[in-house]
C-alpha cells in the first residue's frame, strides 16, 4: 500500500484544499479519476484509494456483451491498441452484483459509465440506475453505433448528441458527464451541443482510431482490424482537443488521453481541464495515480497555488 496522503501532507493542512475541484455537481477531493475500463477494485490494492477524486467503472450496456475475438490488444511504439468490444455482464448483473461491491468498498464518488444503441435504450438504462443508491454520476459513452441512425456513432452528430443529452438530463439530478470521441470533425461543436442540452460536464477523449500490422506476414495485430488507440502517443491530440473544447464550453472538462505523469496532468489543467483521468497509465505503472497526485500536490504547495489558479491559464 502507498503511504497515506494525510501523512505526506501532514506539514500542510492546506494541501487537500489545493487539490479540491468541482466536476459539475460533484465536489472532488482530488482532480484525479480513472478512465472507464482501465481500473477496477483490484487496482485499489496498489495505493491509497484517497488519491482518487472519483471512481469511473467500466462501461455497462443493457444486455451482456460477449466482446470481440482475440487478439484484442497490441502495444505499439507509443501507446496501446485495444479492441475489447465493451465486454460486460449487462445492466441486471451490474446492479445485482457489481454495484453492491462498489457501495461497500468505495469511499469516493462512483461515476457509472454506460452506453446504448438507441436514445430509448440510453434512457432506459439511466432510469434503472436512477433507482439505485450509491451512484454519484454518469459518464455517457457515445462512441458506440446508433441503430436508429444506420449504425453511425452517436458521438459524431451534434443533433443526435443534443437529443440524447436533452432526454437524459431531464431524468437526473446526478452528475451527467458526456464522454466524447476524438474521431469527429469538430469536437467543440459536439461539446456545445451537449452543454446546451443540459450536460453538467464533458469527458474527453475516448480512444483514437488505431491499427497495427505484422509487416512480415501482413496480418493485422488486432482481429477486428481497426482498434482504439490510447496511451502516451495520443497525449498531444488529447491536449489540443481539451484546449479547443475548453474555449467553447463553460461546463467543466474531465480530460484524459496519454496522461502518465504529474507533469502530463498539469499540462491538461493549464489547457482547461477541471479534472483528469488516467487510463493506459494504470497498466504501464500501477502506482501512477499515487505518483501523479503526489507530484501535483507538491507542485501546488511549493508555489502556494490552487488548481483553480492555473486551470485554463495556458499562455499561447
Amino acid at each position, binding site marked *: 500500500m502507498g503511504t497515506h496522503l494525510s501523512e505526506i501532507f501532514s506539514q500542510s493542512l492546506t494541501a487537500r484544499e489545493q487539490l479540491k475541484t468541482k466536476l459539475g455537481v460533484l465536489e472532488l477531493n482530488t482532480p484525479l479519476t480513472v478512465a472507464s475500463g482501465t481500473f477496477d477494485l483490484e487496482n485499489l490494492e496498489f495505493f491509497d484509494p484517497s488519491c482518487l477524486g472519483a471512481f469511473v467503472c467500466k462501461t455497462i450496456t443493457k444486455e451482456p456483451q460477449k466482446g470481440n475475438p*482475440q487478439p484484442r*490488444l497490441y502495444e505499439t511504439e507509443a501507446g*496501446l491498441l485495444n479492441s475489447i468490444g465493451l465486454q460486460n455482464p449487462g445492466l441486471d448483473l451490474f446492479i445485482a452484483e457489481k454495484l453492491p461491491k462498489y457501495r461497500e468498498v468505495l469511499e469516493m464518488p462512483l461515476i457509472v459509465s454506460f452506453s446504448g444503441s438507441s436514445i430509448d435504450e440510453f434512457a432506459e438504462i439511466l432510469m434503472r440506475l436512477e433507482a439505485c443508491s450509491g451512484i454519484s454520476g454518469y459518464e455517457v459513452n457515445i462512441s458506440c453505433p446508433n441503430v436508429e441512425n444506420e449504425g453511425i456513432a452517436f458521438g459524431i452528430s451534434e443533433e443526435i448528441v443534443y437529443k440524447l443529452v436533452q432526454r437524459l438530463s431531464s431524468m437526473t439530478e446526478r452528475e451527467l458527464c458526456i464522454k466524447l470521441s476524438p474521431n469527429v470533425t469538430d469536437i467543440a461543436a459536439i461539446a456545445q451541443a451537449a452543454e446546451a442540452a443540459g450536460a453538467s460536464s464533458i469527458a474527453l477523449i475516448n480512444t483514437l482510431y488505431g491499427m497495427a500490422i505484422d509487416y512480415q506476414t501482413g496480418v493485422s495485430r488486432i482481429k477486428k482490424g481497426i482498434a482504439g488507440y490510447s496511451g*502516451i502517443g495520443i497525449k498531444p491530440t488529447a491536449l489540443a482537443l481539451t484546449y479547443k473544447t475548453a474555449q467553447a464550453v463553460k461546463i467543466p472538462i474531465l480530460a484524459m488521453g496519454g496522461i502518465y505523469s504529474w507533469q502530463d496532468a498539469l499540462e491538461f489543467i493549464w489547457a482547461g481541464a477541471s479534472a483528469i483521468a488516467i487510463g493506459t497509465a494504470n497498466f504501464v505503472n*500501477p*502506482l501512477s495515480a499515487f505518483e501523479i497526485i503526489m507530484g501535483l500536490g507538491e507542485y501546488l504547495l511549493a508555489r502556494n497555488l490552487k488548481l483553480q489558479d492555473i486551470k485554463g491559464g495556458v499562455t499561447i
Partner: protein
Amino acid sequence: MNNPQYRQRAIQAREELTDDYFILWIWDEAWGAAVRPGQFFEIRALASLEDAQVAGHIPKLFKPISIYDNQGGRIGFMIKNVGKGTNALSKLRAGDMLELLGPAGNGFPVYRGKHALLISGGIGYPPMWYLQKELINHNQVYWMHGGATQGDTFPCDEIFTEDGSIGKKGRVCDGLKENIAKYDIDIVYSCGPLPMLAAATAITQELAIEHYASLEAYMACGIGVCYGCVIPVGSALNWDYLRVCKEGPVFKAEEVRWELI
C-alpha cells in the same frame, strides 16, 4: 483468492540455460507461502516511471511470466528471450530491480494418488517444473517435453524435438496416446503453444481423461481489469470470453473452444 500485490524486488541471482533461456531468482517469503503452481506474475525491469517526461523514454507494459520454481520464497522465473519485453528482461543481472504484480491467476489443481502426465512444449516448460515438485510425493508423474530443437529442451522423462537433434524426432503429442495407456494415466496437465494444447485436448477428450491446460495470452493489466487477454470457454453452443489472467491461466481443456481461437 487475494488480489495481486505490487512489489519491487532485487534479482538475487541470474542463471543461464540454453541460448535464449535464462532464470531470474527473487526472494519474497510472503509470496513464497502464497503462490501455487500454474500462477504467474506480471514482471518488468524497474523503470523510471514516476517521471516519463524527464526519463525521456516510453514505459512499456509488464510481461506475464509463470512461476518456474518456489523454494520457500526463493522464486524463479524461467524466461525465453522472444520479444521486446523479454529482451529487456534478458539484460538484467543480479542486483538489478524487478517490478512485480502478482501472484496472478488460478493455478493447477493438485491431487493425491493420481497417475499424472505432464506435457509441455517450448516455453511451456517452466510452470511444469513447479507443478511436478508439488505432485511428485503423492502421485506418479510422467513428464513429456517437446521443442523445435535441442536448445528448447530441459530435464524431464521423455524428450521430443522437431529436428530430431535430441530425444525422439517429432512433436510431443505424437507420444501422448501411447504414454496415457502405458502409464495408466488418469490426469493430464499441459502448457505450451496453442496447436500443441489443442492437439493434446483432442486426445484426452477421446480417451475421457481429465486434462488441465495452462494458456498464454497478450495482457495489458494482468489483474482482471481490462479484458484484453480473454479466450472462449464453455460448451460449443454456450461459451463466454474468460480472462486468462483471472479465471485462468489454467482451464479445463475440454471447455476451451480451441476451434474459435
